[in-house]
């Protein structure tokens, strides 16, 4: 009996001590705190945020919550007792779901007039556009040069035997660029015809993997992983990233994007003030800040996305190596929300089974 008691006592003390030691290290911040929920890809320069914090006497706390779907899920599941004041990162493929769930408060930021209409998705301004990126096929320039292969000009070109087994795509059920690319094909071929196109791609040996990391670094021959396929579904901002993050200085991007009509799907990311915030005034200031020139010009190098603010200028590497699709594919976000599950299931049946 005594033994048991002592054992429990000793062990409990250990637990309590470790708990106490680790939880005390946090000091209470003096400023008020603004909680901003985002996905894991969010990034920003330290001085840009610090400046905002100083000007407004506030501490910004970023809550990174997994990928876009996971982060949005967190916002939806906790809408009764919101864990943040601002949510950034919902994109146009998830947008109508977020609006249906009614998690955002409308806010007509004065900075909206610097943003072209084509990026705005909600007339009530419950979500405001922040950035966009084009999901396009990237190709390995040297592979095409060496093999004297012409660059494909349209999706239908990809069905040519010359490109057999040369393309790797991501599974739309598990990857957001994969889903965006599926949407581009639906925009191009219609809800009736896209499965025939995918059937053709399948017969022409398209390789499917589950995530962008594997597709880009393991399968794509133009990346440092030096895989087998010279074409990959990635972003139009990937070629400048290859130059910026080169190990030895490059004069030319080793890859480029296929930006023909409807070949890229434009992903637009939005910010919104979460319903039930206790910090409405500061939340508004933060939204204004995300649309401001300083944040918009900081974004490209941090997140490899394009600014929506027309006054924001692009960094040099971006201006030189990034291509922006002239005529990107787009789909109505209500249609996406209604059909997403069916599309993904039909795609799975056609391509994977």
């Amino acid at each position, binding site marked *: 009996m005594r*033994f048991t008691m002592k054992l429990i006592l000793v062990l409990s003390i250990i637990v309590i001590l470790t708990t106490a030691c*680790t939880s005390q290290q946090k000091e209470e911040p003096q400023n008020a705190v603004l909680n901003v929920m985002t996905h894991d890809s969010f990034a920003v320069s330290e001085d840009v945020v610090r400046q905002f914090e100083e000007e407004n006497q506030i501490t910004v706390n970023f809550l990174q919550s997994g990928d876009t779907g996971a982060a949005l899920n*967190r916002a939806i599941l906790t809408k009764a007792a919101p864990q943040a004041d601002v949510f950034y990162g919902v994109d146009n493929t998830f947008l109508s779901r977020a609006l249906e769930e009614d998690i955002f408060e409308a806010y007509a930021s004065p900075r909206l007039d610097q943003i072209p209409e084509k990026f705005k998705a909600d007339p009530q301004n419950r979500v405001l556009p922040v950035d966009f990126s084009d999901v396009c096929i990237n190709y390995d320039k040297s592979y095409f040069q060496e093999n004297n292969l012409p660059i494909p000009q349209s999706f239908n070109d990809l069905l040519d035997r010359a490109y057999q087994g040369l393309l790797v795509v991501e599974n739309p059920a598990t990857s957001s660029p994969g889903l965006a690319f599926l949407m581009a094909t639906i925009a191009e071929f219609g809800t009736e015809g896209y499965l025939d196109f995918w059937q053709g791609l399948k017969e022409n040996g398209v390789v499917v993997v589950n995530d962008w990391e594997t597709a880009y670094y393991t399968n794509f021959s133009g990346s440092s992983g030096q*895989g087998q396929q010279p074409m990959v579904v990635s972003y139009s901002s990937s070629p400048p990233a290859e130059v910026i993050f*080169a190990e030895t200085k490059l004069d030319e991007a080793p890859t480029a994007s296929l930006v023909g009509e409807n070949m890229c799907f434009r992903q637009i990311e939005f910010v919104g003030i979460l319903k039930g915030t206790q910090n409405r005034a500061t939340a508004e200031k933060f939204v204004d800040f995300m649309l401001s020139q300083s944040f918009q010009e900081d974004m490209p190098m941090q997140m490899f996305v394009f600014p929506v603010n027309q006054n924001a200028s692009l960094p040099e590497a971006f201006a030189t190596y990034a291509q922006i699709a002239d005529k990107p594919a787009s789909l109505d976000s209500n249609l996406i929300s209604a059909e997403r599950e069916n599309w993904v299931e039909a795609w799975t049946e056609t391509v994977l089974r």
Partner: protein
Amino acid sequence: MIKSPSWKAKGSWKSLLLWLAPILFLTFFYFQPLLATFKMAWQVGSNQGLTTSVFNKIWAPLSFTIWQAVLSTIITFLVGLPMAYVFARFRFAGKAFLKVLVTIPFIMPTVVVAAGFNAFLGPKGWVNSLLISVFDLGQPPIQILNTLAAILLAHVFYNTSVVIRVVGGAWAKLDPKMEQAARSLGASPWKVFQRINFPLLRPSILAAILLVFLFDFTSFAVILLMGGPQFATLEVEIYIQALHLLNLPTAGLLSAVQLVFTLLLTAGYSLINRRRVVRLTPRDPDEVEKPIQTAGQKMMVVGLVFSMLVLFVLPLISLVFRSFLRLDAVRGERGMVQSGVTLAYYQELFINRRQSLFYVPPIDALKNSLVFALITVVIALVLGLLAAIALSRKTNWNRLMDPILMLPLGTSAVTLGLGFILVFNRPPIDVRSFPLLIPIAHALVALPFVVRTLQPAIVSIPETYRQSAAVLGASPWRVWWLIDYPILFRAILASGIFAFTVSLGEFGATTFLSRPDLPTIPIAIYRYLSQPGALNYGQALAMSTILMVICGLSIYIVEKLRLPDVNDF
């Protein structure tokens, strides 16, 4: 909560005290969040109305999940048992190193492991390149990636260490005299295993089977990254439904199915495991292991060491090499391979080139990872020791608690993670400001490993030892300190290492809990891999190499620990 008046087994209230901390911990940090998710899924489901077509979505992933888990477990044992035997019975150079090596897979992010297997066995990997140039082939002869074989290979890669540690640990304490006696009486080696070793090792073997099976059963990243899109386990399906289709009711239903299956399995396990255990004098492992004598033994040991090197070293070593290689010049001008050795990736790790707010200094990431892992070890060891002691005391509670303890290992990480978000949203325990939730979540998964490693060791101690010590006047505390603790020392070490590696390898539920101010190494690796460019790829590999070396070293040092006074018993 646990007041059953009808229950009067002898000494039972003491067991109840032992159970108290583990029960409270599980109730608060496991059942509470889990039920919150199920409740939410149920609410959403009853609002939207669950269609019957949902039931069609259950069978295919469930049958595949079971099928691949059964296959993986069998193969893991075919590979692991001979290795456990060699580790338990022979003394040879490099043994300690190999022991560390087999634990490395546990701590490596799957994305890195998958890249390693690709560099080794992929279409452009070493093996295929070699075969192509030797036999002048047009196509890579080995096409293993994105097949069931790749999933099985990865599961063997991850789980062999469980068999080696759990079974090998018990084997090392068996007196070899029995085997020798049986052999000299003419029994074949197979007969010796069947009639002597297996019955004595049965509790450990069963425990290892359960752990390996549950690990494979809830496999997630391996299926996604090694199996490719053709394969989906329940866990993968739950992830897709919950986080990509935002279909919580279906996800909830699937995780309920997963949970019920886990419960049935663990209940079955504890039923089988209740058979009486023969308690024999445990031997000091150092005394039992012997140098290699005959040529046959030599061949066996050399063969096994060689196959271990192939299985564990080759997939990882190519990544280590790659983290020192400059390969940029290959691109752009094909044919002009100008690779060279470089430290650029390692240097770059320490530079916040883009002044990013989320830049992760490698030392900090390492520190955070290690601190989280150590706290996980403390929580899991304390609770696991209490639970394992309680379990060894044959009371009625065991029938209930034994399966419950194993549940976290068979629970969907996504479901549990969502539950954490739902439940812990106000001070003092708030996911936004309570960093301890991360090691707590890790400890939930580590706890089953700790219990399953310790419990067979505890029941193997002959009661007569404790009785003799008590008769000679030792207090119960002294009995524990002098008898149980030295015998259990190795099992405690082994289970502590499990908890350590489980935590370092990160586990799904923590993606919801990760904090930008306390980044860990796996988070840093994913951060690099999520953007294109040679420097990012190189830094991810450099970071993985650091993780591998530092954690391998710390495990090596812990392995070398010896009890100061007691060496044999």
